[in-house]
């Protein structure tokens, strides 16, 4: 399983000289195996996807964790959506109030977009998922609702190569007592448990989180604890805060290394990184 990180920034694309190392594109991860491609989230990083490398791929599956703008803003620029020869499947969280096409239609309509969702010319199929298990090519995918404002899921992607878990927006420590050691009481733990790689929200420092509780994100330290409780084998922190420069992220990482003593490797996710598991 080849995993390419096309966007690891949180909230808003952030391009300036101080974010060149970790990157400024918002959430988009490409997962590839046996010529089958999954795209996890459609943030601005999706514009870096090179489809000329995937001409043989008969279909593309876009798995959205949720519909906050930083996770869908790249959709309008996703060329296969406008290619009648392409079969594109969009997967996203179910909610009772409105269908997924209706909710996506809020973005794909004026004044936010010059065209409507119905104008997409690809062979489109939309799938609403919740606490679900489904198969795409060589992948078995488990989705589950996780704690984040609005309907939001995380994904556990399993293939014969291993297990990759993706929970980019997540606040498992919400509440007075913070993270619970008993993983039955830990949102998303069934997705993360024993994963070969966990790509998880690590937006805030402890100080920042103290004034941003309920905003839907995790501290870097809590993300490490979460990975420890769920016994993942490797952790990458993502959804970097848009105010964090490369130098600040380096300093945060140095502090984490100094304070933490965990039996698994962890890093700050860097845009453009390719990982094989």
């Amino acid at each position: 399983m080849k995993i390419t990180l096309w966007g690891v920034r949180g909230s808003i694309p952030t391009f300036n000289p101080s974010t060149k190392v970790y990157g400024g594109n918002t959430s988009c991860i490409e997962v590839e195996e046996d010529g089958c491609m999954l795209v996890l989230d459609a943030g601005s990083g999706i514009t870096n996807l090179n489809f000329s490398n995937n001409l043989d791929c008969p279909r593309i599956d876009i798995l959205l964790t949720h519909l906050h703008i930083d996770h869908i803003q790249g959709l309008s620029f996703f060329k296969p959506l406008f290619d009648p020869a392409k079969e594109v499947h969009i997967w996203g969280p179910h909610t009772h109030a409105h269908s997924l096409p209706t909710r996506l239609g809020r973005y794909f309509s004026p004044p936010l977009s010059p065209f409507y969702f119905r104008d997409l010319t690809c062979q489109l199929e939309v799938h609403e998922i919740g606490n679900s298990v489904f198969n795409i090519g060589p992948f078995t995918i488990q989705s589950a609702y996780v704690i984040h404002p609005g309907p939001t899921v995380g994904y556990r992607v399993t293939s014969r190569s291993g297990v990759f878990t993706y929970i980019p927006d997540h606040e498992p420590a919400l509440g007075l007592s913070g993270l619970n050691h008993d993983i039955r009481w830990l949102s998303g733990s069934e997705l993360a448990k024993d994963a070969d790689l966990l790509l998880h929200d690590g937006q805030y420092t402890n100080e920042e989180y103290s004034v941003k509780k309920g905003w839907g994100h995790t501290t870097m330290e809590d993300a490490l604890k979460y990975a420890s409780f769920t016994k993942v084998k490797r952790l990458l922190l993502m959804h970097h805060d848009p105010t964090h420069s490369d130098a600040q992220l380096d300093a945060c990482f140095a502090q984490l290394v100094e304070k933490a003593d965990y039996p698994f490797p962890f890093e700050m996710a860097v845009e453009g990184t390719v990982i094989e598991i």
Partner: protein
Amino acid sequence: MAYPIEIILNRQLADCLAIPVFITDTVGNLLFYNEPAEEILGKRYQDTGEMKVEEWSTIFLSKDENGKLLEPEDLPLVKTLLNQLPYFKTFWIESLKGKSEKISVSSYPIIGRAGIFVGAVAIFWRPSDE
């Protein structure tokens, strides 16, 4: 297997409240009770953990104002578990030590985004709280 996030979020809310809150699964097993609820049960969550329905439902007796035992089907939480609807009732509870207390109970079903009934919550109000 993690509990549904609707259960987890209810626990986190209960953890922050000064009123007794009980959270059960769909058949009435007690998954969590907060500190104010510990006083009613006479037990601490950190000691008992989760409790089977037959265990915690016998810790106190439920009676009407004439001292007559209430049928389980008359209790708000039981009705919520049966019908997946909210209920409210004021009655008397009597601990195994014989201490009686007038209590009002509000109960509601936990039905999440998936539209699936995953458990129930009972909130106990003392008349002085009302």
